[in-house]
Protein backbone atom coordinates (compact mmCIF):
# COMPACT_ATOMS: atom_id res chain seq x y z
CA UNK A 1 0.00 0.00 0.00
CA UNK A 2 1.23 3.48 -0.70
CA UNK A 3 0.45 7.13 -0.17
CA UNK A 4 1.66 10.06 -2.24
CA UNK A 5 3.88 12.80 -0.82
CA UNK A 6 6.15 15.41 -2.36
CA UNK A 7 9.90 15.16 -1.98
CA UNK A 8 11.84 18.11 -0.54
CA UNK A 9 13.07 19.00 -4.04
CA UNK A 10 9.50 18.76 -5.27
CA UNK A 11 8.34 21.15 -2.54
CA UNK A 12 11.13 23.65 -3.37
CA UNK A 13 10.24 23.47 -7.08
CA UNK A 14 6.58 24.02 -6.23
CA UNK A 15 7.37 27.16 -4.22
CA UNK A 16 9.62 28.45 -7.06
CA UNK A 17 6.81 27.75 -9.53
CA UNK A 18 4.33 29.78 -7.47
CA UNK A 19 6.82 32.67 -7.24
CA UNK A 20 7.28 32.65 -11.02
CA UNK A 21 3.53 32.47 -11.61
CA UNK A 22 2.92 35.34 -9.19
CA UNK A 23 5.62 37.55 -10.76
CA UNK A 24 4.29 36.73 -14.23
CA UNK A 25 0.81 37.81 -13.17
CA UNK A 26 2.20 41.11 -11.84
CA UNK A 27 3.90 41.74 -15.20
CA UNK A 28 0.61 40.97 -16.93
CA UNK A 29 -1.18 43.47 -14.71
CA UNK A 30 1.42 46.11 -15.58
CA UNK A 31 0.96 45.29 -19.26
CA UNK A 32 -2.82 45.70 -18.98
CA UNK A 33 -2.52 48.90 -16.93
CA UNK A 34 -0.03 50.35 -19.44
CA UNK A 35 -2.51 49.73 -22.25
CA UNK A 36 -5.68 50.94 -20.51
CA UNK A 37 -4.42 53.51 -18.04
CA UNK A 38 -1.12 54.56 -19.50
CA UNK A 39 0.78 53.63 -16.33
CA UNK A 40 3.98 52.14 -17.68
CA UNK A 41 7.30 51.65 -15.87
CA UNK A 42 9.88 53.98 -17.49
CA UNK A 43 12.16 51.23 -18.74
CA UNK A 44 9.61 48.81 -20.30
CA UNK A 45 6.78 49.23 -22.77
CA UNK A 46 3.46 47.31 -22.68
CA UNK A 47 4.51 44.71 -25.25
CA UNK A 48 7.75 43.82 -23.43
CA UNK A 49 5.84 43.61 -20.15
CA UNK A 50 3.36 41.24 -21.77
CA UNK A 51 6.17 39.08 -23.18
CA UNK A 52 7.91 38.98 -19.79
CA UNK A 53 4.69 38.05 -18.01
CA UNK A 54 3.87 35.37 -20.55
CA UNK A 55 7.34 33.77 -20.29
CA UNK A 56 7.25 33.84 -16.48
CA UNK A 57 3.79 32.24 -16.32
CA UNK A 58 4.89 29.61 -18.84
CA UNK A 59 8.06 28.91 -16.83
CA UNK A 60 6.03 28.67 -13.60
CA UNK A 61 3.59 26.23 -15.15
CA UNK A 62 6.49 24.15 -16.44
CA UNK A 63 8.11 24.08 -13.00
CA UNK A 64 4.80 22.98 -11.46
CA UNK A 65 4.67 20.03 -13.84
CA UNK A 66 8.29 19.14 -13.00
CA UNK A 67 7.50 19.41 -9.27
CA UNK A 68 4.77 16.80 -9.71
CA UNK A 69 7.48 14.40 -10.93
CA UNK A 70 8.96 14.73 -7.46
CA UNK A 71 6.04 12.84 -5.98
CA UNK A 72 7.24 9.80 -4.12
CA UNK A 73 5.12 6.94 -2.91
CA UNK A 74 5.37 6.00 0.74
CA UNK A 75 5.53 2.25 0.81
CA UNK A 76 4.26 0.17 3.70
CA UNK A 77 5.29 -3.25 4.96
CA UNK A 78 3.11 -5.60 6.95
CA UNK A 79 5.05 -7.17 9.78
CA UNK A 80 4.33 -9.83 12.36
CA UNK A 81 5.56 -9.14 15.86
CA UNK A 82 6.49 -12.37 17.61
CA UNK A 83 6.66 -12.69 21.39
CA UNK A 84 7.17 -15.51 23.84
CA UNK A 85 4.02 -16.87 25.51
CA UNK A 86 6.02 -16.73 28.73
CA UNK A 87 6.00 -12.91 28.60
CA UNK A 88 6.52 -10.75 30.65
CA UNK A 89 8.96 -13.18 32.33
CA UNK A 90 10.67 -13.81 29.00
CA UNK A 91 11.47 -10.68 27.00
CA UNK A 92 12.07 -12.41 23.66
CA UNK A 93 10.70 -10.38 20.75
CA UNK A 94 11.16 -10.60 17.03
CA UNK A 95 9.66 -8.79 14.04
CA UNK A 96 9.49 -10.28 10.60
CA UNK A 97 7.50 -9.92 7.38
CA UNK A 98 3.89 -11.08 7.58
CA UNK A 99 3.32 -14.51 6.06
CA UNK A 100 0.16 -16.00 4.60
CA UNK A 101 -2.28 -17.59 7.10
CA UNK A 102 -0.78 -15.82 10.08
CA UNK A 103 -3.06 -14.19 12.63
CA UNK A 104 -2.74 -12.48 15.99
CA UNK A 105 -2.32 -14.97 18.90
CA UNK A 106 -1.38 -17.79 16.51
CA UNK A 107 1.06 -20.14 18.20
CA UNK A 108 4.19 -20.84 16.19
CA UNK A 109 5.81 -24.25 15.85
CA UNK A 110 9.31 -23.04 16.72
CA UNK A 111 10.15 -22.63 20.44
CA UNK A 112 11.51 -19.49 22.10
CA UNK A 113 15.27 -19.13 21.69
CA UNK A 114 15.63 -17.87 25.26
CA UNK A 115 13.34 -19.99 27.42
CA UNK A 116 12.12 -22.74 25.10
CA UNK A 117 8.47 -21.82 25.69
CA UNK A 118 5.99 -21.46 22.86
CA UNK A 119 6.08 -18.39 20.63
CA UNK A 120 3.03 -16.57 19.38
CA UNK A 121 2.22 -13.67 17.10
CA UNK A 122 1.51 -10.75 19.39
CA UNK A 123 0.64 -8.25 16.68
CA UNK A 124 0.35 -7.83 12.93
CA UNK A 125 0.69 -4.27 11.77
CA UNK A 126 1.61 -2.01 8.91
CA UNK A 127 4.77 0.07 9.18
CA UNK A 128 6.24 2.62 6.83
CA UNK A 129 9.14 1.33 4.76
CA UNK A 130 12.25 3.28 5.63
CA UNK A 131 14.83 4.16 2.98
CA UNK A 132 17.64 1.67 3.13
CA UNK A 133 20.75 3.21 4.61
CA UNK A 134 22.50 0.08 5.74
CA UNK A 135 23.73 -2.73 3.56
CA UNK A 136 21.19 -5.57 3.21
CA UNK A 137 23.18 -7.82 5.54
CA UNK A 138 23.25 -5.21 8.28
CA UNK A 139 19.47 -4.68 8.53
CA UNK A 140 17.98 -5.65 11.82
CA UNK A 141 14.32 -6.48 12.46
CA UNK A 142 14.79 -4.89 15.90
CA UNK A 143 14.70 -1.48 14.16
CA UNK A 144 10.98 -2.01 13.57
CA UNK A 145 10.48 -3.22 17.13
CA UNK A 146 11.75 0.06 18.53
CA UNK A 147 8.96 1.94 16.76
CA UNK A 148 6.37 -0.09 18.64
CA UNK A 149 7.28 0.08 22.29
CA UNK A 150 10.33 1.20 24.21
CA UNK A 151 12.11 -2.11 24.51
CA UNK A 152 12.98 -3.03 28.06
CA UNK A 153 16.46 -4.33 28.43
CA UNK A 154 16.85 -7.79 29.87
CA UNK A 155 17.86 -7.65 33.55
CA UNK A 156 21.32 -9.20 33.02
CA UNK A 157 22.25 -6.69 30.27
CA UNK A 158 21.11 -3.74 32.35
CA UNK A 159 23.16 -5.05 35.27
CA UNK A 160 26.32 -5.39 33.21
CA UNK A 161 25.84 -1.82 31.88
CA UNK A 162 25.54 -0.52 35.42
CA UNK A 163 28.67 -2.37 36.38
CA UNK A 164 30.49 -0.82 33.42
CA UNK A 165 29.50 2.65 34.59
CA UNK A 166 30.29 2.05 38.26
CA UNK A 167 33.03 -0.56 38.38
Amino acid at each position, binding site marked *: MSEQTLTVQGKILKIAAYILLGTGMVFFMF*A*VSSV*FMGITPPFLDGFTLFLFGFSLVLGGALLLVIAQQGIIKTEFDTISLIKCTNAPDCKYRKARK*FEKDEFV*FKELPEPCEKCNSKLHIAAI*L*EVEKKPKKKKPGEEKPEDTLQQ*LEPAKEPADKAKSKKEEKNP
Partner: protein
Amino acid sequence: MQATDINWIFQLVFLGFFFFIFFYNQRMQIWMMQKQIERALFELQQMSNEGKDLLVKLVNERGKPKEDPRERLQSLMDFFTVEPVNMDPAGVIWRLEHILDIRKIRWEKEVAQVAPAASRDVAANIEGTIEAAMSVYFIYKVIRHFLLLGKKTKSLILIMQIQMQLPLIMLIAKAIFKALKAFGSGIPIGDGVGPYVVSGLVREYSKKSPPKITKEYTEDVTLIEQTIEGRNVFIVRATGPGARVGKPGEAIKKLVEENNGKFNRLIMIDAGLKLEGEKTGTIIEGVGAVIGGPGTEKYKIEESVGVKYQLPMDGIVIEESQEDAYGPLNKDLVNAIPKAIERVKQMILTRTSEGDNVIVAGIGNCCGIGD
Protein backbone atom coordinates in the same frame (compact mmCIF):
# COMPACT_ATOMS: atom_id res chain seq x y z
CA MET B 1 4.95 48.16 -35.36
CA GLN B 2 4.06 51.32 -33.45
CA ALA B 3 3.02 51.49 -29.83
CA THR B 4 -0.52 52.59 -30.75
CA ASP B 5 -1.00 49.51 -32.97
CA ILE B 6 0.03 47.25 -30.07
CA ASN B 7 -2.39 49.07 -27.81
CA TRP B 8 -5.19 48.44 -30.30
CA ILE B 9 -4.33 44.74 -30.40
CA PHE B 10 -4.30 44.63 -26.61
CA GLN B 11 -7.64 46.41 -26.46
CA LEU B 12 -9.20 43.91 -28.86
CA VAL B 13 -7.69 40.90 -27.09
CA PHE B 14 -8.85 42.20 -23.75
CA LEU B 15 -12.37 42.89 -25.02
CA GLY B 16 -12.52 39.42 -26.55
CA PHE B 17 -11.32 37.94 -23.27
CA PHE B 18 -13.84 40.03 -21.32
CA PHE B 19 -16.80 38.87 -23.42
CA PHE B 20 -15.58 35.28 -23.37
CA ILE B 21 -15.43 35.32 -19.55
CA PHE B 22 -18.78 37.14 -19.39
CA PHE B 23 -20.68 34.52 -21.38
CA TYR B 24 -18.68 31.33 -20.83
CA ASN B 25 -17.67 31.76 -17.20
CA GLN B 26 -19.99 29.03 -15.91
CA ARG B 27 -19.08 26.68 -18.76
CA MET B 28 -15.42 27.06 -17.88
CA GLN B 29 -16.20 26.41 -14.24
CA ILE B 30 -18.16 23.25 -15.18
CA TRP B 31 -15.33 22.12 -17.44
CA MET B 32 -12.75 22.54 -14.69
CA MET B 33 -14.90 20.67 -12.17
CA GLN B 34 -15.61 17.94 -14.71
CA LYS B 35 -11.92 17.41 -15.25
CA GLN B 36 -11.41 17.12 -11.49
CA ILE B 37 -14.22 14.54 -11.22
CA GLU B 38 -12.90 12.65 -14.25
CA ARG B 39 -9.49 12.36 -12.61
CA ALA B 40 -11.08 11.04 -9.41
CA LEU B 41 -13.28 8.69 -11.44
CA PHE B 42 -10.24 7.28 -13.18
CA GLU B 43 -8.63 6.64 -9.80
CA LEU B 44 -11.84 5.00 -8.55
CA GLN B 45 -12.01 2.83 -11.66
CA GLN B 46 -8.44 1.72 -11.10
CA MET B 47 -9.21 0.91 -7.46
CA SER B 48 -12.35 -0.98 -8.45
CA ASN B 49 -10.55 -3.00 -11.13
CA GLU B 50 -7.61 -3.74 -8.85
CA GLY B 51 -10.04 -4.81 -6.13
CA LYS B 52 -11.84 -7.17 -8.47
CA ASP B 53 -8.55 -8.65 -9.68
CA LEU B 54 -7.44 -9.18 -6.08
CA LEU B 55 -10.75 -10.87 -5.31
CA VAL B 56 -10.51 -13.20 -8.30
CA LYS B 57 -6.93 -14.06 -7.34
CA LEU B 58 -7.98 -14.79 -3.76
CA VAL B 59 -10.92 -16.96 -4.82
CA ASN B 60 -8.79 -18.87 -7.32
CA GLU B 61 -5.97 -19.39 -4.82
CA ARG B 62 -7.95 -20.31 -1.72
CA GLY B 63 -11.33 -21.43 -3.03
CA LYS B 64 -10.25 -23.67 -5.91
CA PRO B 65 -13.36 -22.98 -8.01
CA LYS B 66 -14.38 -25.47 -10.68
CA GLU B 67 -15.03 -22.74 -13.23
CA ASP B 68 -13.86 -19.17 -13.81
CA PRO B 69 -15.35 -17.15 -10.92
CA ARG B 70 -15.16 -13.78 -12.72
CA GLU B 71 -18.71 -13.76 -14.04
CA ARG B 72 -20.27 -14.82 -10.72
CA LEU B 73 -18.20 -12.30 -8.78
CA GLN B 74 -19.10 -9.51 -11.21
CA SER B 75 -22.79 -10.26 -10.70
CA LEU B 76 -22.24 -10.06 -6.93
CA MET B 77 -20.84 -6.55 -7.40
CA ASP B 78 -24.33 -5.34 -8.28
CA PHE B 79 -26.01 -7.17 -5.38
CA PHE B 80 -28.57 -5.02 -3.56
CA THR B 81 -30.39 -5.12 -0.22
CA VAL B 82 -33.70 -3.35 0.20
CA GLU B 83 -34.09 -1.74 3.60
CA PRO B 84 -37.41 -2.25 5.39
CA VAL B 85 -40.07 0.43 5.18
CA ASN B 86 -39.82 2.84 8.11
CA MET B 87 -43.04 4.83 7.66
CA ASP B 88 -44.45 2.58 10.37
CA PRO B 89 -41.43 2.32 12.69
CA ALA B 90 -42.93 -0.32 15.00
CA GLY B 91 -40.88 -3.51 14.71
CA VAL B 92 -38.51 -2.04 12.12
CA ILE B 93 -35.50 -3.42 14.04
CA TRP B 94 -36.70 -7.02 13.67
CA ARG B 95 -37.61 -6.52 10.03
CA LEU B 96 -34.15 -5.04 9.41
CA GLU B 97 -32.52 -7.93 11.25
CA HIS B 98 -34.43 -10.42 9.16
CA ILE B 99 -33.23 -8.77 5.96
CA LEU B 100 -29.64 -8.67 7.23
CA ASP B 101 -29.91 -12.36 8.19
CA ILE B 102 -31.16 -13.48 4.81
CA ARG B 103 -28.50 -11.34 3.16
CA LYS B 104 -25.80 -13.02 5.24
CA ILE B 105 -27.10 -16.51 4.46
CA ARG B 106 -27.24 -15.66 0.76
CA TRP B 107 -23.67 -14.36 0.80
CA GLU B 108 -22.38 -17.39 2.65
CA LYS B 109 -23.98 -19.65 0.05
CA GLU B 110 -22.59 -17.58 -2.80
CA VAL B 111 -19.09 -17.76 -1.32
CA ALA B 112 -19.43 -21.50 -0.72
CA GLN B 113 -20.39 -21.91 -4.37
CA VAL B 114 -17.68 -19.70 -5.78
CA ALA B 115 -14.94 -20.92 -3.40
CA PRO B 116 -15.82 -24.49 -2.40
CA ALA B 117 -12.39 -25.34 -0.97
CA ALA B 118 -12.16 -22.32 1.33
CA SER B 119 -12.09 -22.95 5.09
CA ARG B 120 -14.63 -21.19 7.33
CA ASP B 121 -12.21 -18.40 8.19
CA VAL B 122 -11.01 -17.94 4.62
CA ALA B 123 -14.64 -17.90 3.45
CA ALA B 124 -15.32 -15.10 5.95
CA ASN B 125 -12.32 -13.19 4.57
CA ILE B 126 -13.59 -13.70 1.02
CA GLU B 127 -17.01 -12.39 2.11
CA GLY B 128 -15.35 -9.30 3.57
CA THR B 129 -13.29 -8.80 0.42
CA ILE B 130 -16.38 -9.09 -1.80
CA GLU B 131 -18.21 -6.56 0.34
CA ALA B 132 -15.31 -4.09 0.21
CA ALA B 133 -14.92 -4.57 -3.57
CA MET B 134 -18.66 -4.03 -3.94
CA SER B 135 -18.49 -0.79 -1.95
CA VAL B 136 -15.63 0.63 -4.04
CA TYR B 137 -17.46 -0.36 -7.23
CA PHE B 138 -20.65 1.27 -5.91
CA ILE B 139 -18.86 4.56 -5.19
CA TYR B 140 -17.37 4.44 -8.69
CA LYS B 141 -20.82 3.85 -10.22
CA VAL B 142 -22.45 6.72 -8.30
CA ILE B 143 -19.72 9.23 -9.22
CA ARG B 144 -19.88 8.12 -12.85
CA HIS B 145 -23.66 8.52 -12.79
CA PHE B 146 -23.54 12.10 -11.53
CA LEU B 147 -20.70 13.03 -13.89
CA LEU B 148 -22.52 11.71 -16.95
CA LEU B 149 -25.83 13.21 -15.83
CA GLY B 150 -24.12 16.55 -15.25
CA LYS B 151 -22.52 16.41 -18.70
CA LYS B 152 -25.82 15.45 -20.30
CA THR B 153 -27.83 18.20 -18.65
CA LYS B 154 -24.92 20.69 -18.45
CA SER B 155 -26.12 21.27 -14.89
CA LEU B 156 -23.71 23.16 -12.66
CA ILE B 157 -25.47 22.03 -9.49
CA LEU B 158 -25.02 18.31 -10.28
CA ILE B 159 -21.35 18.68 -11.13
CA MET B 160 -20.70 21.09 -8.27
CA GLN B 161 -22.19 18.94 -5.50
CA ILE B 162 -20.05 15.97 -6.51
CA GLN B 163 -16.91 18.07 -6.94
CA MET B 164 -17.37 19.64 -3.51
CA GLN B 165 -17.84 16.30 -1.78
CA LEU B 166 -15.07 14.63 -3.77
CA PRO B 167 -12.29 14.87 -1.14
CA LEU B 168 -14.45 13.14 1.47
CA ILE B 169 -15.73 10.55 -0.99
CA MET B 170 -12.19 9.72 -2.10
CA LEU B 171 -11.08 9.41 1.52
CA ILE B 172 -13.82 6.85 2.19
CA ALA B 173 -13.11 4.99 -1.07
CA LYS B 174 -9.39 4.78 -0.27
CA ALA B 175 -10.15 3.56 3.25
CA ILE B 176 -12.46 0.82 1.94
CA PHE B 177 -9.84 -0.15 -0.61
CA LYS B 178 -7.35 -0.57 2.24
CA ALA B 179 -9.86 -2.84 3.99
CA LEU B 180 -10.25 -4.85 0.80
CA LYS B 181 -6.52 -5.56 0.70
CA ALA B 182 -6.45 -6.35 4.42
CA PHE B 183 -9.38 -8.80 4.22
CA GLY B 184 -7.81 -10.46 1.21
CA SER B 185 -4.62 -11.18 3.16
CA GLY B 186 -6.27 -11.77 6.54
CA ILE B 187 -4.49 -8.81 8.15
CA PRO B 188 -6.13 -7.32 11.27
CA ILE B 189 -7.82 -3.98 10.69
CA GLY B 190 -8.23 -1.01 13.00
CA ASP B 191 -11.86 -1.87 13.69
CA GLY B 192 -10.67 -5.10 15.33
CA VAL B 193 -9.16 -3.45 18.42
CA GLY B 194 -12.15 -4.47 20.59
CA PRO B 195 -11.70 -8.24 20.16
CA TYR B 196 -7.92 -7.74 20.28
CA VAL B 197 -8.16 -6.10 23.73
CA VAL B 198 -10.45 -8.75 25.25
CA SER B 199 -8.31 -11.60 23.91
CA GLY B 200 -5.23 -9.86 25.31
CA LEU B 201 -6.98 -9.67 28.68
CA VAL B 202 -7.81 -13.39 28.56
CA ARG B 203 -4.19 -14.24 27.80
CA GLU B 204 -2.92 -12.10 30.63
CA TYR B 205 -4.94 -14.08 33.18
CA SER B 206 -4.85 -17.49 31.47
CA LYS B 207 -1.98 -18.73 33.69
CA LYS B 208 -3.75 -17.79 36.92
CA SER B 209 -7.18 -18.93 35.77
CA PRO B 210 -7.57 -21.15 32.70
CA PRO B 211 -10.41 -19.82 30.56
CA LYS B 212 -13.48 -21.85 29.64
CA ILE B 213 -14.11 -21.24 25.95
CA THR B 214 -17.49 -21.83 24.29
CA LYS B 215 -17.15 -21.50 20.54
CA GLU B 216 -20.32 -20.58 18.64
CA TYR B 217 -22.14 -19.53 21.81
CA THR B 218 -24.36 -17.75 19.34
CA GLU B 219 -23.66 -17.64 15.62
CA ASP B 220 -20.09 -16.42 14.98
CA VAL B 221 -19.63 -15.39 18.62
CA THR B 222 -17.28 -16.95 21.20
CA LEU B 223 -17.90 -16.82 24.95
CA ILE B 224 -14.94 -17.07 27.32
CA GLU B 225 -15.50 -17.49 31.07
CA GLN B 226 -12.60 -16.58 33.31
CA THR B 227 -11.86 -15.40 36.84
CA ILE B 228 -10.19 -12.01 36.80
CA GLU B 229 -9.21 -10.40 40.12
CA GLY B 230 -11.80 -12.54 41.92
CA ARG B 231 -14.65 -11.56 39.57
CA ASN B 232 -16.47 -13.97 37.28
CA VAL B 233 -15.88 -12.40 33.92
CA PHE B 234 -17.81 -13.44 30.82
CA ILE B 235 -15.99 -12.30 27.71
CA VAL B 236 -17.89 -11.99 24.46
CA ARG B 237 -16.30 -11.46 21.05
CA ALA B 238 -16.74 -12.48 17.43
CA THR B 239 -15.06 -15.73 16.44
CA GLY B 240 -11.71 -15.14 14.78
CA PRO B 241 -9.50 -15.10 12.83
CA GLY B 242 -11.97 -14.79 9.96
CA ALA B 243 -13.40 -11.39 9.02
CA ARG B 244 -16.54 -11.61 11.16
CA VAL B 245 -18.36 -9.24 13.47
CA GLY B 246 -20.94 -11.76 14.68
CA LYS B 247 -23.98 -10.75 16.68
CA PRO B 248 -22.58 -9.64 20.04
CA GLY B 249 -25.93 -8.15 21.04
CA GLU B 250 -27.63 -11.50 20.58
CA ALA B 251 -24.91 -13.21 22.66
CA ILE B 252 -25.14 -10.64 25.48
CA LYS B 253 -28.94 -10.91 25.50
CA LYS B 254 -28.75 -14.72 25.66
CA LEU B 255 -26.14 -14.62 28.42
CA VAL B 256 -28.13 -12.18 30.54
CA GLU B 257 -31.36 -14.08 30.11
CA GLU B 258 -29.79 -17.48 30.83
CA ASN B 259 -28.49 -16.09 34.11
CA ASN B 260 -31.72 -14.18 34.94
CA GLY B 261 -29.88 -10.89 34.79
CA LYS B 262 -27.52 -11.79 37.65
CA PHE B 263 -24.77 -9.56 36.39
CA ASN B 264 -23.32 -6.48 38.01
CA ARG B 265 -21.87 -4.65 35.03
CA LEU B 266 -21.40 -4.72 31.27
CA ILE B 267 -18.16 -3.32 29.85
CA MET B 268 -17.89 -2.86 26.10
CA ILE B 269 -14.74 -2.07 24.12
CA ASP B 270 -14.90 -0.81 20.57
CA ALA B 271 -13.10 1.34 18.02
CA GLY B 272 -14.60 4.81 17.62
CA LEU B 273 -14.13 7.53 15.06
CA LYS B 274 -11.88 10.32 16.26
CA LEU B 275 -12.34 13.96 15.41
CA GLU B 276 -9.64 15.64 13.32
CA GLY B 277 -6.92 16.87 15.65
CA GLU B 278 -7.33 13.99 18.08
CA LYS B 279 -4.61 11.37 18.29
CA THR B 280 -5.08 7.87 16.93
CA GLY B 281 -5.09 5.34 19.76
CA THR B 282 -6.47 7.70 22.41
CA ILE B 283 -8.57 5.75 24.91
CA ILE B 284 -11.76 7.35 26.16
CA GLU B 285 -14.46 6.13 28.53
CA GLY B 286 -18.20 6.63 28.69
CA VAL B 287 -21.51 4.94 29.33
CA GLY B 288 -24.02 3.20 27.07
CA ALA B 289 -23.94 0.42 24.52
CA VAL B 290 -20.70 1.05 22.65
CA ILE B 291 -21.44 -0.66 19.37
CA GLY B 292 -21.90 0.55 15.79
CA GLY B 293 -23.46 -1.17 12.81
CA PRO B 294 -27.03 -1.04 11.61
CA GLY B 295 -28.44 -0.73 15.15
CA THR B 296 -30.01 -4.14 15.68
CA GLU B 297 -27.36 -5.35 18.13
CA LYS B 298 -27.35 -2.07 20.03
CA TYR B 299 -31.12 -2.30 20.40
CA LYS B 300 -30.89 -5.84 21.81
CA ILE B 301 -28.29 -4.77 24.40
CA GLU B 302 -30.26 -1.69 25.43
CA GLU B 303 -33.48 -3.69 25.70
CA SER B 304 -32.12 -6.73 27.57
CA VAL B 305 -29.27 -5.32 29.65
CA GLY B 306 -30.61 -1.82 30.06
CA VAL B 307 -34.41 -1.76 30.15
CA LYS B 308 -35.17 -5.30 31.41
CA TYR B 309 -32.43 -5.81 33.99
CA GLN B 310 -31.29 -2.21 34.60
CA LEU B 311 -27.59 -3.11 34.50
CA PRO B 312 -24.94 -0.40 34.30
CA MET B 313 -23.21 -0.26 30.92
CA ASP B 314 -19.68 1.12 30.60
CA GLY B 315 -17.82 1.72 27.40
CA ILE B 316 -14.19 2.07 26.37
CA VAL B 317 -13.48 3.52 22.96
CA ILE B 318 -10.15 3.49 21.15
CA GLU B 319 -10.18 6.49 18.87
CA GLU B 320 -9.10 6.23 15.26
CA SER B 321 -9.85 7.79 11.88
CA GLN B 322 -12.00 6.15 9.26
CA GLU B 323 -8.87 5.25 7.32
CA ASP B 324 -7.34 3.63 10.41
CA ALA B 325 -10.55 1.74 11.14
CA TYR B 326 -10.71 0.20 7.68
CA GLY B 327 -6.98 -0.13 7.11
CA PRO B 328 -4.45 -2.54 8.65
CA LEU B 329 -3.47 -1.96 12.28
CA ASN B 330 -0.76 0.62 12.72
CA LYS B 331 1.75 1.20 15.51
CA ASP B 332 -0.39 3.80 17.29
CA LEU B 333 -3.23 1.31 17.60
CA VAL B 334 -0.98 -1.59 18.55
CA ASN B 335 0.58 0.56 21.27
CA ALA B 336 -2.91 1.45 22.53
CA ILE B 337 -3.85 -2.22 23.13
CA PRO B 338 -1.91 -2.76 26.42
CA LYS B 339 -3.20 0.58 27.70
CA ALA B 340 -6.77 -0.40 26.89
CA ILE B 341 -6.30 -3.76 28.66
CA GLU B 342 -5.08 -1.85 31.70
CA ARG B 343 -8.17 0.40 31.56
CA VAL B 344 -10.48 -2.63 31.45
CA LYS B 345 -8.66 -4.13 34.44
CA GLN B 346 -8.99 -0.86 36.34
CA MET B 347 -12.67 -0.68 35.48
CA ILE B 348 -13.23 -4.21 36.76
CA LEU B 349 -11.26 -3.49 39.93
CA THR B 350 -12.83 -0.15 40.78
CA ARG B 351 -16.42 -0.63 39.69
CA THR B 352 -17.11 -4.21 40.73
CA SER B 353 -16.50 -6.23 43.87
CA GLU B 354 -15.04 -9.70 44.34
CA GLY B 355 -17.47 -12.43 43.38
CA ASP B 356 -19.42 -10.14 41.00
CA ASN B 357 -20.46 -11.30 37.56
CA VAL B 358 -19.20 -9.02 34.80
CA ILE B 359 -19.66 -9.13 31.03
CA VAL B 360 -16.79 -7.78 28.93
CA ALA B 361 -17.57 -7.48 25.22
CA GLY B 362 -14.98 -6.77 22.54
CA ILE B 363 -16.81 -5.35 19.55
CA GLY B 364 -15.38 -5.25 16.04
CA ASN B 365 -14.22 -7.14 13.02
CA CYS B 366 -12.06 -10.10 13.97
CA CYS B 367 -10.14 -10.34 10.69
CA GLY B 368 -6.70 -11.73 11.53
CA ILE B 369 -7.32 -11.84 15.29
CA GLY B 370 -7.44 -15.31 16.79
CA ASP B 371 -9.55 -16.20 19.84
